[in-house]
């Protein structure tokens, strides 16, 4: 053990103050081993040194009492996958042109991630794995991040990957002129020109403001930023240019893509097993589910419990669950009657039986939410904050105190998507118990997002998965937030969020998180009823597919067992 301690001390000398702080946290038992690894990976410690330090410094073995963690890993019943074969994967049909700049949907990002690669991969445990970046490191306050770019990697056309390509890609996405979808993550964080190749193998990224989670923004979580050649001409559909394990064979718009394995792929541990891989596009959920059941595809990148019940009970199908932060927000306009009194908002939040929602809408495949964006899956979430549970009596009392004991009528706007209409009806039924007469108004997506989203007194909006809660904390809740449907404006909250975003170590992140969670629980501008899991499925003959909560699916190690 002394030898180990000595080696840890050696390691500490070479690491930054932040890294050492993290090691202190682990040694003091403030964080578990898993959190240490997750957090350390953000700061750029290699996985091997993380494992070594974790073993030497102890710490709890696991997250402890956080309840059942979904498998996260792939199903192992079928044994190890064999090399060879042709994989067929059903994905949601991409919504538009396949352009790394503008893709904004799950089908599109799943395609980007096959031939393209990110600097960093955010895996299903929300740990960061180095990909095209070998390592990375922040400066003192997290305002400048330095990435060491992997050498010896080539694009599919044979040109070698350089630091120039990486810097050009980041600047491309950060420039508002290019109308990139990644601006929603880079806005206020990275401006065009912020990324600079300081030499062949190093990229220095200077941020607009300190950001402790920047590596997530260049990871697969910010799915647009696959690394492109510096001379990218905008026509990605022609070649599917990238450095990834799969090389484009043929692309048929609306129908699908076929790939062959990349014989020159740099990562020897992730060499594709199958010879070819085909992505088939399905515009309709039901068609995708049927395709897997009918043996037309071997893998389904994503399905929902609503509409996919048949897969959950099919004994020929293996379901892969990934715990995620995707959720629905039930927002109430705090600047208008009747929800301008926080007691009314609390009352509505209190009538919901969240356990029943999770069971009924997701067959248990979701985490219960606690009315803040801090999903249980995030390491910075403070789980000691008491969970809000159903209490109809208290809800009634709160309404009476607010002077609306007789209840009131209000419209609930939302759009027709998966379980949302059912959620609306369940909220309607629950609210009736305390005299709130809700009328659900369910429209299509276009109508909802244009006419109702930001103006309705009460609405339900869907949010996709993110590896860190930053966007959930800012856009829908800060005074300047662009998606602030509840019109929530709270100076104290804004200050806390700024502190959270700038915080570099988990300990201080969690301290701020606790205050944010308590503030939101008290104010309740938004009800977060649940965070649901990302579900994928394969036939029993296939193993090794690795989906992420974001909607990527890594097929490099997928193969047939027999």
């Amino acid at each position, binding site marked *: 053990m002394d030898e180990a301690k000595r080696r840890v001390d050696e390691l500490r000398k070479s690491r930054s103050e932040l890294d050492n702080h993290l090691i202190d946290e682990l040694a003091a038992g403030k964080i578990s081993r898993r959190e240490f690894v997750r957090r350390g990976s953000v700061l750029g410690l290699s996985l091997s040194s993380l494992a070594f330090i974790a073993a030497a410094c102890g710490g709890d073995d696991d997250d402890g009492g956080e309840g059942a963690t979904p498998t996260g890993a792939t199903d192992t019943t079928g044994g190890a996958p064999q090399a060879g074969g042709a994989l067929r994967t059903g994905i949601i049909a991409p919504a538009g042109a396949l352009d790394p700049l503008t893709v904004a949907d799950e089908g599109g990002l799943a395609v980007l991630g096959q031939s393209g690669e990110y600097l960093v991969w955010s895996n299903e445990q929300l740990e960061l794995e180095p990909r095209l970046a070998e390592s990375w490191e922040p400066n003192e306050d997290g305002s400048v991040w330095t990435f060491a770019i992997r050498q010896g990697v080539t694009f599919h056309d044979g040109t070698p990957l350089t630091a120039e390509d990486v810097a050009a890609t980041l600047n491309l996405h950060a420039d508002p002129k290019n*109308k*990139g979808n990644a601006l929603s993550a880079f806005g206020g964080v990275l401006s065009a020109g912020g990324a600079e190749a300081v030499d062949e193998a190093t990229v220095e990224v200077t941020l607009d403001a300190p950001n402790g989670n920047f590596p997530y923004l260049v990871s697969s979580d910010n799915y647009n930023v696959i690394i492109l050649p510096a001379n990218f001409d905008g026509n990605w559909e022609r070649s599917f240019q990238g450095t990834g394990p799969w090389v484009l064979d043929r692309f048929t718009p609306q129908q699908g893509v076929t790939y062959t394995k990349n014989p020159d792929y740099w990562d020897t541990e992730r060499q594709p097993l199958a010879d070819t891989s085909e992505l088939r596009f399905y515009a309709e959920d039901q068609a995708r589910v049927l395709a897997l059941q009918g043996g037309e595809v071997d893998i389904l990148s994503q399905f929902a419990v609503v509409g996919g019940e048949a897969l959950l009970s099919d004994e020929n199908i293996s379901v892969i669950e990934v715990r995620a932060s995707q959720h629905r927000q039930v927002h109430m306009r705090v600047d208008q009657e009747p929800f301008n009194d926080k007691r009314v908002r609390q009352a509505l939040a209190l009538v919901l039986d969240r356990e029943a929602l999770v069971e009924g809408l997701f067959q248990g495949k979701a985490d219960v939410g606690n009315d803040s964006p801090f999903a249980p899956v995030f390491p910075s979430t403070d789980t000691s904050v008491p969970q809000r549970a159903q209490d109809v009596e208290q809800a009634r009392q709160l309404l009476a105190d607010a002077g609306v004991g007789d209840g009131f009528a209000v419209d609930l706007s939302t759009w027709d998507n998966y379980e949302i209409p059912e959620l609306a009806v369940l909220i309607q039924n629950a609210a009736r118990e305390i005299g709130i007469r809700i009328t659900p108004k369910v429209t299509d997506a276009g109508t909802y997002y244009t006419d109702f989203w930001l103006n309705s007194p009460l609405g339900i909006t869907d949010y996709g998965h993110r590896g860190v809660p930053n966007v959930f904390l800012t856009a829908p809740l800060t005074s300047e937030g662009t998606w602030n449907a509840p019109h929530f404006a709270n100076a104290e909250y804004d200050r806390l969020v700024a502190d959270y975003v700038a915080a570099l170590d988990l300990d201080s992140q969690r301290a701020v998180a606790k205050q944010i969670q308590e503030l939101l629980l008290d104010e309740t501008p938004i009800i977060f009823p649940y965070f649901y899991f990302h579900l994928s499925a394969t036939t029993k003959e296939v193993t090794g597919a690795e989906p992420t909560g974001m909607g990527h699916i890594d097929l490099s190690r997928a193969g047939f067992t027999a």
Partner: protein
Amino acid sequence: MIIFTAAQVLPGDVGRAILGPFADDRAVEQLNEELGTNRSVFVQYADWVGGVLRGDLGDSYAFRRPVGDLLWPALENSAKLALLAFIVVVPLAVVGGVAAALAQGRLPDRLISIGGLSATAIPEFVWAVLLIIVFALWLDVLPVSAQAPAGAGLLTEAKYLLLPALALVFVLFGYIARMARAGTIETLDADYTRTAYLKGLSRRTVIRRHVLRNSLLPTIAVVATQVGYLFGGLVVIELIFNYHGIGELLFRAVQQQDFPLIQSTVLLIGVVYLAATLVADLLYSLLNPRIRLARDE
């Protein structure tokens, strides 16, 4: 013009629809600027009409490729499905309808009429799901989707298309058979039929030479009107079977508020409908000398 106005009053804006609700405002503005969707409605329309007159349908906003690239394969797919459905249903329904008429009021008539009507009353997507469950999942004899792999032969394609075509057969059978039955009953009662019998012709000859020719006229009109439904009206069927026909294309175009694609798709459906009606009229005159002669006078 109506389609155009309707497409324009669709809620939301194009850039937003393409980039998604959570896209950055700057990106949305930029895209609208690039696509020209921030221009006035009339400018956009004039632009499109001008293009169509030159044979250029424009570029799809969402897929950023020429509309023709998307439209023609979809038209071909829809045509294949419609053709297969017709090949099965028209002879079947005509024979059924005539048989029912000849057995008017008796058991075969009741079976065909009531069976056909009941099948028609069930929407095509319900048939689609039932057929998939039985033939693709339980019996595992037919594929679950309709899109044959690229480069498949004619027979393979027909195999893939059989289930959706069958679903359409169920829906169309009752309709067409009823028309055939009504037409036949009417001609059986007609004076010239009685004359034919009275001049001593056999029942067989009367039916073949006098009844069928006349009774099928209304049936042809009905079949022609169904062409419009088969091209563009099969949104749900095409989605369930993951088939890339006109209906699916239109559905996705509307979802994306892809104005050039919506316009061109609807225009195409209109053209197909007109062509079908025209063919029906020609067939009419071919089968019915009275119409032909009336024109000659």
